[in-house]
């Protein structure tokens, strides 16, 4: 039943200064679901990691837009969020996972963000379509 799917979209300049606006947009939409604090935090983290990735890497050294589309399926109790940018083709899911068993001395500083996304979301999909990077996360709420 498609009429119970809520879909909202935010188009915004991909700058870390806009992170709060993106988080606010997502949180407003999550209020339409019955999701727990824990899931809300996991989704927030994933949104931050993915938006900041676009802000840092997609258009460097220039800037460009990011489109964040959120779909809430209250029937299947599922939220999907898609991040679209027109920057350099890049599949973050191909990045090797960090070794989380290493000690503080051995640990490198990077690579954690996308790993946290993969661990906390139910599905993470990447596609390059029409000259755009599209990364979709899905989470049961």
């Amino acid at each position, binding site marked *: 039943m498609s009429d119970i799917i809520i879909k909202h979209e935010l188009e915004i300049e991909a700058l870390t200064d806009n*992170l709060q606006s993106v988080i606010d947009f997502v949180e407003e939409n999550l209020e339409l679901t019955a999701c727990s*604090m824990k899931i809300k*935090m996991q989704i927030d983290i994933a949104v931050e*990691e993915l938006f900041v990735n676009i802000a840092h890497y997609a258009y460097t050294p220039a800037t460009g837009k990011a489109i964040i589309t959120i779909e809430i399926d209250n029937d299947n109790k599922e939220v999907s969020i898609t991040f679209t940018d027109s920057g350099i083709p890049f599949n973050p899911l191909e990045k090797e996972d960090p070794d989380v068993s290493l*000690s503080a001395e051995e640990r490198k500083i990077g690579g954690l963000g996308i790993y*946290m996304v993969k661990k906390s979301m139910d599905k993470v999909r990447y596609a390059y379509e029409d000259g755009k990077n599209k990364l979709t996360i899905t989470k049961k709420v």
Partner: protein
Amino acid sequence: MLNIEKNAVADKLEVILSGRLDTATAPQLESELKDALNEVKELVFNLADLEYISSAGLRVLLSVQKVMNKNGNMVVTNASDEVKEIFEVTGFSDILTIE
């Protein structure tokens, strides 16, 4: 928004964090601690009112932990279940001393 409160007694420093430790606020914590750790032998992070931590926040904790491995010791206290779960997933629960 992140609020950072520091209580120093001799060579012991307690850092009380409340709010969100994320991409926007992590640089603030980094600069607050940069010069504050020189004489510190015992560092306590009190996370009772920390609502949220992202990888940018974890990166700061990791780099502070590395400094404290040389200078003394560091513990993390009162983290919420949500924050603890982030530590678990990322392997930080093995790196940090969580009480």
